[in-house]
């Protein structure tokens, strides 16, 4: 099932309307809905968050586009609200965090599997193994701070164990930049992949920066500070794989195409009918945005959108467990490091990054502290202990 984005015009911009009750729906159920409903809600909030971020950046340097950007952005603002407000209030900050990391693992794995460019594929593997480790660290925090089992959220789709240890993920800025794809040669799926993952990671960074200080526990605050720093590195990595010489309008066009692509993927796989209706509506809204921007592209740049966009959208992100694939990558690539724009064997690790991480870890590592001796077990680590919770330590 796919969609012809040149034929399908969706709902035109002027007919895209909301009211406050429309924006604020009854949320999905943390207990009853499939984990991938949460994954989709979190990812699409990230996609819309990126839509706004991009639109503002573009408006600041493109006076002639400001009104058109503002018109589309108003709708994107409300789409993001409707989507993000689907998160339920009984899902606390740490539980939502577990959802963010499951997004980062499963969506990045799907993207990596579908990525035709071997260099970009490796970049996705590299980031994914780091987010894989974050899930383990946050699961340990949740277990040890709140006495909760992270698997109640990830629902056995995603392994909870160490990946590339977070303490070695800290790198010098020069080792976080990667080579961009070539806008003239890259496959459309490569462009959509890059935008999707960049959006997801940027939102994750912003979320951790917002919620980190809401914890009382200094170790929790430290862990969020540490992982937020890695997410900032990931944003640096993923934005650098996008060709910086695409024009502003070309980038806008690609953003809208990525939104159609992702909403369509959500719509085609959603198990909750109430939420599937929302995805369907927003596929139509985004097609409207896409055609609005296609018209601008033609009139302003005098270019044919078909130069940039594929006639039919590529295979959507697959919302399913990628356990086998992730385990294989973990097994083969966990020891890789970055040196400049290249992913390299451990022995070629960058001296600049080694020095940087030694400095950052000089007074200890929150991610190591929180997961010291931690192995996930069904029901949490206490479920595996008999009798006393632990030996008395004077």
């Amino acid at each position, binding site marked *: 099932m796919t969609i012809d984005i040149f034929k399908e015009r969706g709902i035109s911009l002027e007919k895209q309307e909301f009211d406050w*009750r429309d924006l604020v729906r*009854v949320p999905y*159920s*943390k*207990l*009853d809905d499939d984990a991938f409903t949460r994954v989709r809600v979190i990812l699409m909030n990230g996609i819309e968050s990126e839509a706004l971020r991009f639109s503002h950046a573009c408006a600041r340097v493109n006076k002639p586009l400001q009104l058109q950007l503002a018109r589309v952005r108003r709708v994107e603002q409300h789409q993001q609200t409707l989507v993000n407000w689907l998160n*339920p*209030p*009984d899902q*606390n900050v740490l539980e939502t965090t577990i959802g963010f990391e499951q997004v980062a693992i499963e969506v990045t794995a799907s993207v990596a599997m579908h990525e035709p460019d071997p260099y970009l594929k490796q970049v996705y593997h590299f980031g994914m193994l780091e987010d894989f480790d974050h899930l383990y660290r946050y699961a340990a925090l949740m277990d*040890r*701070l*709140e*006495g*909760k*089992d992270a*698997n*109640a959220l990830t629902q056995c789709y995603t392994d909870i164990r160490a990946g590339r240890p977070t303490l070695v993920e800290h790198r010098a800025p020069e080792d976080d930049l990667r080579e961009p794809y070539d806008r003239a040669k890259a496959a459309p799926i490569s462009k959509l992949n890059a935008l999707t993952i960049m959006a997801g990671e940027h939102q994750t960074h912003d979320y951790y920066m917002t919620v980190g200080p809401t*914890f*009382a*526990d*200094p170790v*929790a605050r430290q862990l969020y500070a540490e992982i937020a720093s890695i997410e900032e590195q990931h944003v640096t990595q993923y934005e650098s794989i996008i060709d910086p010489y695409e024009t502003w309008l070309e980038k806008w066009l690609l953003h809208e195409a990525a939104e159609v692509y992702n909403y369509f993927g959500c719509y085609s796989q959603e198990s909750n009918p109430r939420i599937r209706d929302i995805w369907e509506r927003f596929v139509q809204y985004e097609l409207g945005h896409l055609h609005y921007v296609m018209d601008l592209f033609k009139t302003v740049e005098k270019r044919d959108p078909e130069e940039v966009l594929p006639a039919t959208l590529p295979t959507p992100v697959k919302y399913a467990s990628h356990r086998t694939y992730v385990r294989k990558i973990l097994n083969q690539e966990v020891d890789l490091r970055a040196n400049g724009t290249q992913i390299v064997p451990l022995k070629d690790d960058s001296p600049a990054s080694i020095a940087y991480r030694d400095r950052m870890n000089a007074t200890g590592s929150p991610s190591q502290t929180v997961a010291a001796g931690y192995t996930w077990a*069904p*029901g*949490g680590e*206490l*479920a595996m*202990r*008999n*009798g*006393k*919770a632990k030996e*008395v330590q*004077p």
Partner: protein
Amino acid sequence: MNKDEETMAINRTGIQGVPSRTKDLLESLSDAEPSSAGDADLMAAERNTYVGAGLAVGHPPPAPAKEANDPAADVRNVLAVGVLVDKLGERLAFERSGVRLYDALIAKLDASGKLEGGPSRDELVDIRDDEQRHFKMVQKAIETLGGDPTVVTPSADLAAVKAMGLPQVLTDPRTTLAQGLEAILVAELVDNDGWTLLITLTEKLGYKVAAKQFREALQSEEEHLAKVRGWVERLTMNPAALLS
């Protein structure tokens, strides 16, 4: 702000300490009117427009298969077993989280040292270990009933929402041992009533062995409550403890 205000540790939340600003503030109300008619009931009415959607926080797991598949089983009994599973899930989650709360309290005691009238480390460790034993007991009870102890039941979920502030108080390095004990007191009060309700339910359904075990758990929870109450009271009467 003068230098004294900058350096003194004073509470700035009230109005009486800043009479001049208070006067200015109150002056602003001289011609203030609400922007629309009505009162706080409007919020409740708006909230209730969502209730009609009929969507729940979540559902309990199905009643254990043995009961549900038995055609002779009393339907009301099956429903009651479903409630029991929900409430067992709540107790399990509460006891497991309780272990973590006591872990945090023990760490606080380690930082402050023992205070006159307060608990000893060994006393807190004993209670923490009781919570662990109760957690394991409920885990076993759910398994014996044919249920899945890893399920987060609706009651377990909501109990965690209700208790969300407790780890926040206990893991905050700025709170005192006495303040931490007051948070634990909230947990113990709820826990005592939770066990009492569970025993009533279990007895009604005829699970005699489980009811006996749960009564033993309640007895130890009652002892915890009495101890925590005593510590809270004594530390509240001990002004030195307020700062430690």
